[in-house]
């Protein structure tokens, strides 16, 4: 077990040390003190634990890592994640899992505004609430919200599907509530099992998906151009 401290090493030194670890290694990062860009751009199956609050883009661009943060994180946690798991035992600030292509981001508290913005195939599971404009222009992947969703949920949504266990304050343009199928219940059940957020009843979630009315620009729709 390797321990790295943000009070003794710069972020660049820590990321370099992570990159030099053998596959499957376990690393603990202590005293993160809100540092940005920890554990970014890694391509291996490292097991990383961060003890404390981290800053922006934790785990971003990585492929295959398994990160647990015992604390809260700043903007853009796991931005552009390719594969692997990033678990936050705390709250996530704005744009959690933005543009994630793959992997799973699990937040045990709340996620702030624009969670899952432009999601491209990854999975985001939030035990608590999400702020306004969750899943804005999200293209593929799945979002599960264990609490309530804010305004403009799924605005300009493409093919991402959102499940909300609590209330939806408002839907964004082209987002609509759809009937829950057995396939949906199966997806949610698996995410509940993976995250351990068993307050979520897979039969009792609301499915939000795209109405697909904004996919094509209709020049004749209004002759005022």
């Amino acid at each position: 077990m390797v321990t790295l401290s943000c009070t003794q090493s710069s972020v660049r030194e820590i990321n370099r040390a992570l990159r030099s670890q053998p596959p499957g290694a376990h690393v603990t990062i202590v005293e993160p003190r809100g540092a940005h860009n920890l554990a970014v751009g890694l391509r291996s199956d490292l097991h990383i634990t961060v003890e404390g609050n981290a800053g922006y883009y934790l785990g971003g661009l990585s492929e295959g890592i398994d990160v647990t943060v015992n604390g809260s994180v700043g903007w853009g946690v796991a931005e552009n994640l390719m594969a692997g798991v990033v678990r936050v035992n705390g709250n996530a600030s704005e744009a959690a899992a933005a543009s994630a292509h793959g992997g799973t981001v699990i937040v045990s508290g709340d996620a702030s505004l624009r969670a899952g913005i432009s999601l491209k195939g990854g999975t985001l599971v939030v035990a608590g609430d999400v702020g306004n404009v969750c899943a804005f222009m999200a293209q593929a992947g799945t979002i599960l919200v264990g609490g309530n969703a804010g305004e403009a949920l799924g605005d300009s949504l493409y093919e991402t599907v959102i499940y909300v266990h609590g209330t939806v304050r408002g839907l964004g343009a082209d987002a609509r509530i759809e009937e829950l199928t057995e396939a949906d219940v199966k997806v949610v059940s698996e995410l509940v099992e993976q995250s351990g957020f068993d307050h979520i009843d897979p039969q009792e979630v609301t499915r939000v998906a795209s109405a697909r009315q904004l996919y094509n620009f209709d020049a004749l729709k209004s002759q005022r151009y």
Partner: protein
Amino acid sequence: MYPRSTRRASVPRRKWEGFAVCGIVGLHLSDPSLEPDLGRLLTPMLTAMTSRGPDSAGVAVYTAPVPAGRLRFSLRTTQAGFDWTALAVHLRESPLGPVEINDWGNCATLVGAGDAPAMIAALHAFAPDLAVVGYGRALEVFKDVGTPAQICERHGIGSVQGYQAVGHTRMATESAVTTEHSHPFAPAADLCLVHNGSFSNHATLRRRLEDLGVRCETDNDSEVAARFVAHHLDQGDDLGDALRRVLKDFDGFYTLLVSTRDEFAVVRDPFACKPLVVAETAGYVAVASEYHALAGLPGIDSARVFEPMPEEVHVWSR
């Protein structure tokens, strides 16, 4: 007031358009035993924000108030070797009477008569380039160009004592890198505003304020917000109401931190485009653009840490 050449001097600001980054920090102490350490606590917070604003910085501190009827003016001159003693002698012989001046080169604080318009007019008459960067019974303002660390050292911020402080590190996007354009903006007694973001309708609002007799000194967008808040406080609004008017009238991206002698308040735009983290403990309220600026504060691990939501006005009072 400022020469045309100053207004046009500019960093290549288009480069940063849409990427308006500045750093904001603030401390509002409720535990008097922390007051001797105000500057010591604030300095690492401000220097942590260098990455968000390397080109200029400013600090406002609230210290023990001068007696009622007197005001403390924070002054700055561009003249090398400015004769502060001559200024003191000049004012003593004027109807404004005796003043006490503490100077460190091109900056000084002057404690004198509590008639702010008369004092500011007298200062400008004595030396047209003498800038009043802030005034009040408790407020002291330091602002300068350079990195936050350089500015803190130049002005001895680390040893400043007081009960409240606000700091700003600026990466200019909207107007020139000069001391006049750097924050905080302190256009009324003990009022201070710092801003991260950019307003898109500041020219319209500046003209509207001019129609009400309120004139801005620079072409900076944040100054318009400061004078807007000052105007509405003057009209009888409380600080929360004045900030709700900002939400209604100002368009753009903003996180604002506004302080008065007794109050400390924050607000974020409807999309919360600019960050802000608040830490509350029994001893203080601390705010910063990014959490790492707060990470060294005493008791931060047990603080209530949160991010204000869009359009929420938070006000703390002493």
